[in-house]
């Protein structure tokens, strides 16, 4: 499992160590470490009269695009520029070609197979873009199960209502289903696949910065 770590430096003498999220640290310093993991931000603390810098390192964010579609052709390289680890999953071999996606990892397999071998986690985002329920639905189920920090699905409100109904019948409760962003993307009036890509990426960033992980930290 991927997890966050803190690089702790004693600023008086430069001595340092690495602490994983589940490591037990006692006392005042331990409390400061727990708060830093929760807040999701690096910071300076004073504990036992000494100054420590706690540099928080979170796992690289992963973005899974289900559907090797036109939107993905713009979205994948943009997200990679922002530092996301991007992969595209689409079992349709005519779509999932490296010719269409020269810079991105493209996997021409079913999402349920790929995501079993490479499980999603809370540092992952998933956008279902294939427009085909056979491809999108299993991916959305995996994402909801894994607690991805962002889950989005392309399609109109009407399409989404039908999707919600299908997923409900799979036994997923409404609280969870509300986590799916649909219609996908921030409302910027996107008028073509490239602009939709911008709207989706903005929504992904927003979800990470002010969404679930950030929200947990505030609570």
């Amino acid at each position: 499992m991927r997890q966050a770590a803190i690089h702790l430096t004693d600023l008086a003498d430069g001595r340092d160590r690495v602490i994983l999220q589940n490591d037990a640290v006692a006392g005042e310093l331990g409390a400061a470490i727990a708060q830093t993991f929760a807040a999701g931000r690096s910071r300076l603390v004073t504990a036992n009269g000494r100054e420590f810098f706690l540099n928080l390192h979170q796992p690289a964010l992963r973005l899974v695009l289900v559907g090797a579609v036109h939107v993905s052709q713009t979205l994948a390289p943009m997200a990679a520029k922002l530092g996301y680890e991007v992969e595209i999953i689409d079992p349709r071999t005519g779509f999932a070609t490296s010719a269409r996606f020269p810079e991105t990892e493209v996997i021409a397999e079913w999402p349920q197979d790929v995501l079993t071998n490479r499980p999603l986690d809370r540092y992952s985002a998933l956008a279902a873009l294939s427009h085909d329920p056979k491809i999108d639905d299993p991916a959305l189920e995996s994402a909801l199960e894994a607690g991805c920090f962002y889950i989005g699905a392309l399609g109109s409100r009407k399409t989404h209502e039908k999707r919600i109904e299908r997923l409900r019948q799979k036994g997923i409760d409404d609280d969870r289903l509300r986590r799916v962003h649909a219609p996908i993307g921030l409302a910027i009036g996107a008028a073509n696949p490239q602009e939709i890509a911008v709207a989706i990426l903005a929504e992904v960033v927003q979800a990470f910065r002010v969404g679930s992980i950030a929200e947990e930290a505030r609570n």
Partner: protein
Amino acid sequence: MVSETSDPLFIAEGWMNNGRAVAIATVVETWGSSPRPAGSQLAIDEDGNFEGSVSGGCVEAEVITTAIDVIRSGEPTMLEFGVADEVAWRAGLSCGGRIRIYLERLG
């Protein structure tokens, strides 16, 4: 959030594997408006090559110069820049913020 390829720490590791002496500058504290948050890092080698950033470019030159001293001496040091600081003003920290930067040699 940074990917492995753009993280100054990974770049620093690569430099060290090539036998270069490396220092890391880390923003440890900020006040007011400052362009990069605590935890932002800059990797510097003995020749003054650098990757990453600790401000919007305002104080990097000063940090790099000091980093070369730190590489030579091996002694970590703390730098502080602020609007009231003549060096920072000269270096152009015009955003009105104040930052503390910790410099250490790696390895």
